[in-house]
């Protein structure tokens, strides 16, 4: 049923009115109740009207519902009247003098301060964090705001709205022209529901809202900004007093993804500590002789020599971020680093700056790789796979955090047609994860060869060379090495971990070796980049849905429980934490991820149960990297069924992935459909091929044809962009090749061999 614009406005107006009375509830509950009321109105209209609902009918439906005030009470401000009580004349006189002196000082301060600290008008409605103030409501479109507040001032930027009647209040618009945040500037006399107004002190602000989730400072002026994203507010302070209040929709805590800045890599030593960047005078005696921060090293992986991490332009602490900037002064590059002391984070004073210079030049700083003695530890390679480690070069013999390690040797891959060899470190104390750089992995095909891999150690642990399945990333076994202590730590850790993985059947003959077919993604890298971004956006949308269901505290707990497992991957503590998350939060996005995690970590019936539950109830959930639970759980279960020989079940899952999740990706940003499509050529256990191309492009079928015959494809540009379906079971390799060739003939496509390496594919003229 569609309502006319007029009626839709009337419904929205009613909801806005109710919203005001729900202010005391957490945002998620408020939203939930409003959704129920809105649905109620539509349902009631549909029940009672045959055709288009009329304004009179809508009036009647709303009139039959409870009035907005039934849902709560409007916030009120209690005036803070001084309690004089019964005072003796002396005390009264002293108090009067104190008040007069206070008033004089306050006036003087106001005149000198850039911030107006006018008294609050007690009749003003309160600013509701995460909601709005008066008709300045978050999420309202510019048209709705104009209808509610009249024509805005014309002399504002396009993305901003402002009205004469409230000159100190601005609205910032989103790209969709909706109210993204409301800004209350100097001169505004209202206060927030927590009692904060323009001119309130920094300490009072922290007392009202609790420790800020993030505090940062501008470099250009003494402005310190405190942010509470979960509460829907952030506040700008100037010299310790509130100068601007900004409210927005509540959102998760901000994160700062790592962005490299090679200009800062290496070690820096402190040479001065100054009040501002401009206060630094080169060559002058340091303002402070004993500097607390002696040195700071920026590692290329985002770690530092202290407890902070860093990304381009920022040093990130637990609850604050410092800006750093590199300036060339007197021919020397100097790093200025904001120092977020208690004066800044507790009192809102502008930060001071450490001035640091390079310990040595960057080139000199780069440690040299030298041959390093190493102990060889556990070796879990099977099925005639082997890794022989001939030489290890390292920047120090201790294989410590920040050390670069190069491993050289020979490999033999016998168990699969294709795999990757990877140089990594396994955490032995706490946990750790890091991105895989191209220097630390190498693709390989069945047979033997040499490898040389390089890696910078990001956390404490034991180095490892391992084979990984190219499709699933599953480890096929490996070899540990490092110092004696690291190797021993690894040994004792392994004793406490899960039993050895299931042994794979040994490959007997070259013919049988081709059972494992290299699965490659079909879309180009550029396509996958786009698809991956699209999936990430879908993931963000799904995560935001949780905000409609759960309170901020609940969302925080969900994330905490999830991160325990994320940090302690495969540990019992991690599993328990995920189980708690699943039992407590039945609708959260992370619950879907948790089930899939547990599904990947478990075996036997338990694994199938976890994965099936993830598929049944949480298919719409996403990991932050864009991997969708519904798709990936099916993918993992697909492989499980394949291993178990339950081919029908596996085929059903593959079909579901292709039809329901055509854009789904793996954690390695590969198209799941492409991976599955390739696997349609996989042989069954008796060495016989099967074909199952369902509405696939001709180019895809040809690509796999070439893979089977071991030749490269040369395809003319006029091959039609048609899709074909090709199904057959129990084929020998030759029968499979013939089947594809015959199918191509039917499409008027000629296949000709060119030399020993190529297949030329042309359209028959």
């Amino acid at each position: 049923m569609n309502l006319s614009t007029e009626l839709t406005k009337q419904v929205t107006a009613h909801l806005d009115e109710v919203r005001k009375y729900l202010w005391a509830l957490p945002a998620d509950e408020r939203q939930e109740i409003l959704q129920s009321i809105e649905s109620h109105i539509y349902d009631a209209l549909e029940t009672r009207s045959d055709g288009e609902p009329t304004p009179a009918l809508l009036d009647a439906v709303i009139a039959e519902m409870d009035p907005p005030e039934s849902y709560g009470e409007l916030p009120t401000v209690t005036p803070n009247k001084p309690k004089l009580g019964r005072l003796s004349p002396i005390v009264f006189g002293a108090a009067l003098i104190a008040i007069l002196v206070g008033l004089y000082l306050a006036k003087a301060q106001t005149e000198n301060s850039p911030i107006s600290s006018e008294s609050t008008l007690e009749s003003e409605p309160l600013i509701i964090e995460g909601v709005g103030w008066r008709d300045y409501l978050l999420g309202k479109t510019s048209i709705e705001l104009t209808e509610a507040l009249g024509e805005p001032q014309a002399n504002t930027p396009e993305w901003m709205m402002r009205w004469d009647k409230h000159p100190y209040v601005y609205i910032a618009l989103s790209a969709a022209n909706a109210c993204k945040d409301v800004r209350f500037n100097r001169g505004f006399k209202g206060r927030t529901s927590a009692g904060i107004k323009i001119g309130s002190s920094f300490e009072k602000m922290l007392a009202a809202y609790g420790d800020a989730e993030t505090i940062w400072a501008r470099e250009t002026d003494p402005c310190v900004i405190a942010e509470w994203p979960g509460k829907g507010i952030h506040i700008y302070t100037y010299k310790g007093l509130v100068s601007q209040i900004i409210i927005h929709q509540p959102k998760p805590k901000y994160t700062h993804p790592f962005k490299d800045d090679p200009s800062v890599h290496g070690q820096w030593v402190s040479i001065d500590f100054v009040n501002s960047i401009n206060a630094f005078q080169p060559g002058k005696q340091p303002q402070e002789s004993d500097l607390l921060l002696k040195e700071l090293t920026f590692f290329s992986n985002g770690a530092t020599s202290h407890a902070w991490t860093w990304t381009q332009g920022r040093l990130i602490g637990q609850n604050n971020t410092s800006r750093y900037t590199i300036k060339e002064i007197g021919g020397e590059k100097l790093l200025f680093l904001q120092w977020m002391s208690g004066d800044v984070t507790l009192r809102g004073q502008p930060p001071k700056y450490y001035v640091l210079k390079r310990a040595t030049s960057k080139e000199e700083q780069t440690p040299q790789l030298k041959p390093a003695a190493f102990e060889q530890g556990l070796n879990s390679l099977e099925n005639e796979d082997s890794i022989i480690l001939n030489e290890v070069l390292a920047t120090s013999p201790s294989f410590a955090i920040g050390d670069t390690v190069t491993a050289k040797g020979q490999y033999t891959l016998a168990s699969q047609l294709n795999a990757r060899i990877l140089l990594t470190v396994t955490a032995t104390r706490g946990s750790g994860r890091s991105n895989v750089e191209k220097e630390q992995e190498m693709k390989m095909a069945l047979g033997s060869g040499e490898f040389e891999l390089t890696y910078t150690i990001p956390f404490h642990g034991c180095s490892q060379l391992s084979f990984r399945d190219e499709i699933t990333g599953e480890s096929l076994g490996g070899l540990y090495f490092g110092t004696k202590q690291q190797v021993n730590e690894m040994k004792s850790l392994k004793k406490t971990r899960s039993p050895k993985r299931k042994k794979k059947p040994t490959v007997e003959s070259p013919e049988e070796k081709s059972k494992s077919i290299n699965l490659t993604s079909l879309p180009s890298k550029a396509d996958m980049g786009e698809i991956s971004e699209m999936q990430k956006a879908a993931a963000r949308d799904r995560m935001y849905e949780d905000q409609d269901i759960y309170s901020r505290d609940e969302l925080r707990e969900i994330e905490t429980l999830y991160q325990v497992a994320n940090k302690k991957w495969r540990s019992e503590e991690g599993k328990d934490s995920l189980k708690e998350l699943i039992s407590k939060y039945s609708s959260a996005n992370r619950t879907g991820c948790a089930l899939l995690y547990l599904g990947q970590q478990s075996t036997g019936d338990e694994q199938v149960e976890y994965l099936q539950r993830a598929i049944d109830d949480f298919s719409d959930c996403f990991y932050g990297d864009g991997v969708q639970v519904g798709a990936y759980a099916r993918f993992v279960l697909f492989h499980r069924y394949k291993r178990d020989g339950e081919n029908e079940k596996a085929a059903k899952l593959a079909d579901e992935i292709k039809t329901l999740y055509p854009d789904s990706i793996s954690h390695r940003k590969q198209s799941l459909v492409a991976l599955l499509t390739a696997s349609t050529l996989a042989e069954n256990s008796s060495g016989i091929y099967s074909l199952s191309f369902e509405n696939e492009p001709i180019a895809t079928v040809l690509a796999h044809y070439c893979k089977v015959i071991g030749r490269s494809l040369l395809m003319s540009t006029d091959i039609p962009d048609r899709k074909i379906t090709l199904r057959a079971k129990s084929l020998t390799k030759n029968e499979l090749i013939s089947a594809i060739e015959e199918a191509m003939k039917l499409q008027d496509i000629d296949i000709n061999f060119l030399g020993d390496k190529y297949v030329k594919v042309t359209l028959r003229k």
Partner: protein
Amino acid sequence: MSTWVTQLRKGLIEFCILNLLSQGESYGYELLQSLQEIEELVVTDSTVYPILSRLRKDGYLKVQVKPSTSGPPRRYFSLTSLGQQRVKEMNLYWGNLQTAIEHLRTGGTK
């Protein structure tokens, strides 16, 4: 009179909602219609919708959003396993309470 009736109604509405949902999922408006059939409960939207929200928050209900022909997507509520447990406990308690009170009213012994 009115105060204790109000208090009693409040608890009973939650009890009735959980029992209605034990028969299958339902959405706000439909639940409200069903509850309004019990005239003595005097149920209105401002009572039911906040209770639904709270029960969901407490983990007794889960929500599934489905498209609706009437307008915006409907939020279908159903019992979680915790909710099912809660209904069982409440029904057991209700039965025992009813019997005990009936005994009390008729002067019988338990």
